[in-house]
């Protein structure tokens, strides 16, 4: 399902921590701050709940950009959660960049419950960056040596 750039809308995934970033996103809502509708939000209890498996699966399943958002270090509802996120995320991002995923596709951001404006800005900028970058070429290619199912199919005899 490759999409030519013209009619393609970036699909973004955001893992938002429940106590800060998700609350910040809600605040952007109550303040009626407008931003593009490309972001699909997945709520997590803490940014430290996000595993690299989720990020990679999201990219594989059609996400063109992945955001991991949490509280500012020191504000974490669980005290230390985002300290681990900070370390893990840097390792994941550098690893993915090394393996050929454009670094701009995966980003982290500290957004507190009071920063509705920042959430709006982060989403808007992220959509623009990805729109410029184009679709992520991480589509599930079919590993078969053969391209599957031509339209017409001959009846398969039995090999002697």
């Amino acid at each position, binding site marked *: 399902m490759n999409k030519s750039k013209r009619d393609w809308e970036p699909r973004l995934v955001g893992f938002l921590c429940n106590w800060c970033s998700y609350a910040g996103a809600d605040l952007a809502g109550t303040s009626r701050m407008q931003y593009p509708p490309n972001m699909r939000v997945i709520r997590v209890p803490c940014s430290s709940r996000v595993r690299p498996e989720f990020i990679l699966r999201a990219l594989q399943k059609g996400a063109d950009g992945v955001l991991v958002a949490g509280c500012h270090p020191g504000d974490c509802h669980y005290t230390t959660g985002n300290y681990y996120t900070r370390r893990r995320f840097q390792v994941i991002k550098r690893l993915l960049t090394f393996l050929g995923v454009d670094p701009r596709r995966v980003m982290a951001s500290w957004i507190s419950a009071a920063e509705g404006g920042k959430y709006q800005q982060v989403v808007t900028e992220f959509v623009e960056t990805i729109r410029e970058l184009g679709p992520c070429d991480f589509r*599930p290619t*079919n*590993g*078969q*040596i*053969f*391209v*599957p*199912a*031509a339209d017409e*199919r*001959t009846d*398969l*005899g*039995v*090999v002697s």
Partner: protein
Amino acid sequence: MTELWRIKKCDLPAWLNIWREEYELWGARPEGPVMRYGPVADATELVLQVRTRDSAKNMFFPATETMFSFRHDEQGLELNQQLPELKARLLVGLPSCDLQALLVMDNVFGGGGHADPYYSGRRQYTVVVGVACEPGEFFFCQDFGFGPDTPTGADLFLWDDGSNWLAQAFSEAGARLLQAGDWEKVQATVPNRSGPGGWVSADSVARLRERFDDPRWERLGERCLGCGACAYVCPTCHCFDIDDMPHGLEGGERYRRWDTCAFAGFTAAAGHNPRPDQTGRIRQRVMHKLVYGDFRSDRSLCVGCGRCVAACPAGIDIRAIAREAVREKKEVKAGA
């Protein structure tokens, strides 16, 4: 003396290139640091008489293959089978052991009225050109009754005659190949070198069958780390598992992928695993290859290509296991 065809080695690529419109050319060529069978644009890229790291099995029974996709929406369930697209292929350069392996796989996937549509499709549209092999490290094909010059299983077989190739067709597809290119008819004797062997004897198969409970299997179990390298490079390993990949909430596809008895989860069923550790698993591999063999044709599942010996990170060697089985229990060699 039999009637053969001869061509100069340097003219072989030109001959093969003739067939490129009709067939897709396949053969051994370097891929990264390893030799593998794969498609080539020009016959000159092919490397003959070389042992690839993994076998040609991938061409007929790929490591991952979508069987069918399904979609469930308000109109009900829609199923469509994903049969492979059928393209004629010309596979050049299989040594005798790989040819024998193809026969084994044909038995497993093709015979007995229950042809596997995925395997058969690909196999049926592929013409196989065998080439005499230069014996190398870890080979033991002679133990299974054939040598580097045994043509069985090929549509066309090329024997090494110094600066020329001697060829003989064994099917009309093979014969048709000879109609193009500057082949000349000759009368020559077909070389019939005996291959390396002397490891697996009928006696060792019998001893292995008796020694199911021999404690020496545990020594092997300690050394086998449970990876799938041996099985996945083996030309005759054909076990597979089936799994589903969802497409969103409405449908998905069912695919099959290689599996191996070396893996821990291979026999895990409903929380119980009859083979709890590697001892049972390495024993199953050796027994299935050498002793149980292929129940459909009661021939050994091993073709002596030695790829598993080369691939094993722990240095386990199926040849030594067979030889060890005939040795008396008292002197236990390190290798076993």
